[in-house]
């Protein structure tokens, strides 16, 4: 087990399509997190930015860009990129600095102003980039992979499009109660079924949109929090950032082929489940200890997969959980009470940070209508392109 770090503050700029630059969103989120923490910006010893990538080049290089927007004050600065897992990498970097004694207070910021439509790779002729190749050779968009997983579940486990729609209905109901969510209207199963097919069997309302948004956290040592009179802060107890193990036998973005299992017997556990397992091991807890979970519902069907991967149920039992209402607010183990990506849309570098913001508010008992009663332990789970695992365990 590693040591805990305290979450002193959490802040977000609401998700949406606001038509402004990502710096604006990140700055607003950072100021909100600093206010929430009661920490002045000059007290921050280190700032870690989750990169906002534009055309393969990381925007304005996030860490320094946010530091400049907040006013140069000479803090240690770091910028990290791991696609969808960037936010978790930023949190982990901050945590490592705090635990190593390099900084008492670290500001973590991620923000994006997302393009319309499908995510696409950077321009130019880049034949050495698997992400470029999957678009050039196959036209394989992100939803195409989500469609492959969804159909596989239907064949293997008997999941139905109606099961997938239940996830959207559940998450939309939660998102309707979240002022930071982009989509705040309840959605019915009929509306999901009536939306256009994007990648059979998935429809438009099964797949998350791309959004603008910003999220930030102020992290500190537990000792610093105590000195500030925060005796019982939300604590980050584990951050998992593992890679897959060879051979990875499940086709993953942006793969055209999996590893070959000719020489080495594949692990019976999936990569995604190993992400959660590493977090549980580091935190010294198990899925039975969870009060809630925030998982990366890039598609409705993928949320069901996460139920299994984070150990809420056995393989193939995900649909049963959503059918029973176990993962809805008021259920046995609520998942995505923030509304999830279904209600937010993805703002890539901000998203994994936003997941931890939700855990923070829930564990403080300040999530309002969305509150999971008596929440003590939460996990976030996410996965970045090319094999970046990400999961965070927070406790109170």
């Amino acid at each position, binding site marked *: 087990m590693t040591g805990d770090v305290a979450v002193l503050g959490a802040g977000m700029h609401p998700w949406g399509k606001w038509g402004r630059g990502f710096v604006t969103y990140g700055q607003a989120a950072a100021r909100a997190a600093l206010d929430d923490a009661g920490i002045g910006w000059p007290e921050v010893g280190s700032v870690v930015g989750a990169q906002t990538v534009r055309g393969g080049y990381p925007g304005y290089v996030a860490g320094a860009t946010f530091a400049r927007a907040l006013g140069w004050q000479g803090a240690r600065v770091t910028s990290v990129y791991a696609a969808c897992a960037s936010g978790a990498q930023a949190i982990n970097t901050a945590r490592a600095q705090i635990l190593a004694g390099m900084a008492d207070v670290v500001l973590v910021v991620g923000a994006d102003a997302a393009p319309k439509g499908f995510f696409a790779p950077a321009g130019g002729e880049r034949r050495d980039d698997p992400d*470029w190749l*999957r678009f050039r050779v196959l036209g394989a968009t992100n939803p195409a992979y989500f469609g492959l997983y969804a159909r596989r579940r239907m064949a293997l486990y008997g999941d139905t499009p109606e099961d997938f729609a239940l996830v959207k209905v559940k998450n939309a109901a939660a998102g309707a109660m979240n002022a930071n969510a982009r989509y705040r209207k309840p959605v019915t199963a009929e509306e999901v079924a009536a939306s256009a097919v994007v990648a059979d069997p998935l429809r438009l309302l099964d797949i998350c949109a791309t959004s603008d948004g910003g999220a930030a956290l102020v992290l500190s040592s537990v000792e610093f929090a105590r000195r500030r009179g925060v005796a019982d802060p939300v604590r980050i107890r584990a951050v998992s950032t593992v890679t897959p193990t060879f051979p990875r036998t499940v086709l993953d973005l942006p793969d*055209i082929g999996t590893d070959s299992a000719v020489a080495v017997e594949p692990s019976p556990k999936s990569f995604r489940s190993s992400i959660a397992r590493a977090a549980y091991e580091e935190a010294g807890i198990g899925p039975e200890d969870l009060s809630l979970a925030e998982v990366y519902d890039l598609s409705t069907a993928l949320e069901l997969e996460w139920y299994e991967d984070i150990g809420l149920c056995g393989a193939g039992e995900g649909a049963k959980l959503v059918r029973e209402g176990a993962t809805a607010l008021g259920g046995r183990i609520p998942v995505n009470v923030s509304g999830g990506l279904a209600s937010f849309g993805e703002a890539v570098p901000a998203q994994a940070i936003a997941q931890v913001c939700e855990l923070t508010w829930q564990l403080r008992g300040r999530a309002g209508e969305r509150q999971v009663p008596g929440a003590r332990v939460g996990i976030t789970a996410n996965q970045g392109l090319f094999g970046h695992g990400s999961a965070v365990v927070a406790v109170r």
Partner: protein
Amino acid sequence: MPHTRIPVVAGWFTEDTAEEEFRLLGTRCSGCRSVHFPREDGHCRNPGCPGGELEEVPLSKRGTVWSCTDGRYRPPPPYVSDPGVPWVPYTLVAVELAAERMVVLGQAAPGVGVDDLPVGSVVEVVPGVLDEDRAAGTVHTTWNWRPVAAGALS
């Protein structure tokens, strides 16, 4: 019309072969026998591999459907398509190759839909055309997966 046929990626599949001989080309490690597709020409990716030479190897012609989906909307560049022509959805299929113990993605042959590709059914790899530049007189060639009527793996 005379066409220059250019593989969309050189070295990923056989060229100028009859349909029956058409194969995807990967590389196989002489040290641990792991197969890599897309081809790996630098180092074997098996972390426990004692080390070996990577040799070009044709992949199995037939495999079984792991899963499939389709693209109902036009993908963004670098996928090549004519925005002046209505989008025609195509099918993507992930195919499990038993001998190589791996899954390889590809487009299905034109006209093959998801209903033609139940999970577990047998498909074979055939040459296909990805895009065509009429003005330049060139086509980019690729591989396609096509259902096998008899359904036999070999």
